[in-house]
């Protein structure tokens, strides 16, 4: 974990995250105080509990919930869920973050409660994320970041980022990076854009992206090209959606023909 500057005031979203985590912990504590066995309700993350909302245009979690309580089967994950949420809260407060792998390592300090495999911590994290998503919060807002970095971007686009130390905006011209490309950060929610491109071309393979970039295809086609590198990371997907939504750009995908 890298320490970020603590002087930045918590944003509205951060306050929302803290409120959510606190409300769940409060409920657990009140249940205990009232003399009942506490439990946490989490959305079921199976395919059965997913529905496609045509109005918004993407898949959403359904109504089904699973309870995590103090039974032999769930006591461990109950405690782990709470501890992971506590970790999240501390990170939000100190404007810090942890990758999924780091969260797994942090748990090694939890004694009996520790995760034995990263798959375990990932599953618990997904549960918390699913719950947070019901309240409109993303995993990045819980301060759990993916390990792999995002894809690359080149073309007729200017990304406006922030200097995390001073808060001053930084403009990055993606047409001016030579044979390299702009690397999408893990969290993209704070970015804004300036562009005159006509469309976005998402390219599956790194080789094709490089070739088109070397030929400066985006100049002639007046577009933005994005490298996905196989299955795109969350950040890449969100970057593309953000860009497409904000500037009303169509997205074309250049993929291998092996569905």
């Amino acid at each position: 974990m890298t320490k970020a500057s603590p002087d930045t005031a918590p944003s509205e979203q951060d306050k929302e995250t803290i409120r959510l985590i606190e409300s769940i912990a409060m409920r657990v504590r009140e249940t205990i105080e009232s003399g009942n066995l506490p439990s946490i309700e989490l959305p079921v993350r199976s395919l059965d509990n997913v529905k496609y909302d045509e109005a918004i245009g993407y898949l959403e979690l359904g109504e089904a919930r699973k309870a995590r309580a103090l039974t032999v089967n769930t006591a461990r994950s109950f405690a782990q869920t709470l501890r992971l949420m506590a970790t999240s809260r501390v990170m939000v407060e100190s404007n810090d973050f942890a990758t999924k792998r780091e969260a797994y390592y942090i748990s090694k300090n939890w004694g009996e409660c520790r995760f034995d495999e990263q798959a375990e911590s990932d599953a618990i994290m997904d549960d918390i994320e699913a719950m947070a998503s019901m309240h409109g919060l993303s995993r990045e807002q819980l301060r759990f970041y993916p390990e792999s970095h995002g894809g690359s971007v080149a073309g007729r686009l200017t990304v406006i980022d922030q200097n995390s130390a001073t808060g001053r905006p930084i403009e990055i011209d993606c047409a001016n990076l030579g044979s390299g490309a702009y690397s999408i950060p893990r969290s993209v929610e704070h970015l804004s854009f300036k562009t005159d491109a006509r469309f976005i071309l998402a390219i599956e393979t790194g080789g094709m992206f490089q070739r088109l970039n070397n030929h400066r295809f985006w100049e002639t086609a007046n577009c933005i090209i994005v490298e996905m590198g196989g299955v795109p990371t969350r950040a890449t997907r969100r970057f593309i959606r953000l860009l497409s939504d904000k500037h009303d750009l169509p997205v074309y995908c250049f993929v291998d023909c092996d569905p």
Partner: protein
Amino acid sequence: MAGRQREISVSEFFLKNRHLLGFDTPAKALVTAVKEAVDNALDACEEAGLLPEITVQVRDRFGKSRVVVEDNGPGIVESQIARIFGKLLYGSKFHKLSQSRGQQGMGISAAGMYGQLTVGKPLHIISRIEGDELASELYVSIDTANNRPDIHKKKRVEWDRPHGTRVEMEMEGHHQTGPHSVEVYLKQTAIANPHVSIVYTDPQGRETLFARSTDRLPPRPREIKPHPRGVELGRLIQMLSGTKSRSLLGFLVDEFSCVGKKTALQIVKRAGKPLSDRSYPTHIAHAQATALHHAIQRTPIQAPRTDCIVPIGEARLLEGLRKELPADFYTATSRPAATYRGNPFQVEVGIAFGRPGETKIEVDASGHMHKKNAPDAGAVEQLIARKDEPIHLLRFANRVPLLYQQSSCAITKAVIQTNWRSYGLHQPKGALPIAPMAILVHVASVWVPYTSESKEAIEPYPEILKEIKLGLRQCARQLAHYLRHELHLHQEYDKRAYIEKYLPHIGVALQDILTLTDEERDAAVRKLDNILHASRTTQRQDP
């Protein structure tokens, strides 16, 4: 050659074959001697309606043992003392069919004979009948050539007991501890006879009291006549010639149980001519007796009466077990009486499971579970097996413990033939089950079929085996119920222990999120712990 043929006295026979009477090794001889004296004392007390108070003293010096057994019985008439103690096969119990410890009338005189043979000292007897001014003191040995008592000294002496008998004998003996010891014999006697009080002084001078747990004497067993079905041809001929009845009808009705006039007439009719109901019993010839015997076998006759058997009783049996065997679980059952070869008998089974000192789980009022480690009883002679040992068998016949020849006994066979695996115990093929357990089996009968004169094992008649097995199964069902419950408790304990591990972490997480103080955190964890235990059921059923 013909001139060398001569009569053998029964005393001489048993002098040479003393192993038949249980006097083969010095160690065994000592236990057998104590057993014979105690059995006689108990029989005498019970017959007179007295609560038995028995003292047993064993001293052991240079391979010579001195045994003193004293009781508070009715005492013995002076003229009888010599014959009772100095003549083999002299007794009150052989000719009557009634449930008693002694049977043949040879135990105590055999002990005297053994002492006489090995140490050369006669039996020393003091006996006093209630109301007599003085007690009689006699020194008796056996004239083995003639099977006759030989009185050495006889006088009237002062004695502090108002009534009772004291037998002192000296013999080559070896005092040992373990499963075949005097102490174990007395302890088992105390289990099967909760109305008996025994004070035992061992060779080291240590006194052990086996206190009585009840003041009620068991009811007197009733004497019965033989059942016709159990009578063999030879015995029938003997009875015919010995009867006082003047007609066959009268003979059948008077000499047998369960035979009324109607049944007797049916038997006579079935036996056919020339027998009639008025035939003179002593004049019935061999061929006719055979016909009569056949007729008896074929005529439907009421089953033998079983009220002549006095079982220990389930409640008393449990009392006896609780008193002498500390264990976690007890169960006992009395089977209804049954018959073998026309002899009624009754089987009782008791089980004591679990040794103190092994972990046990308890549930307190608030629903919390605790693992309890009771201290081991230590040096006390344990009648319950260890966890990894074959179970211990406590065999009884007419309330007398059987210590030897376990493997040839009907009780052992019945236990081995029972499938203990289906009741949740380990059992190697063809062997006793393995468990921290003692099984008590009591066979009461007017005539217990021992495998030998020393009365160490019961002959496995199919009827007896069957009854024992039924009793064992009845107890085993109770045991299985208890074991299932115990297993459930252990599993529940493990589950709770597993969940409990995570309670502190929930506390820490709540503290981190809600910024609680340490006290608040600990209070929440304590509360959560209480809720957890109260919410989980233990399903405690009384087995």
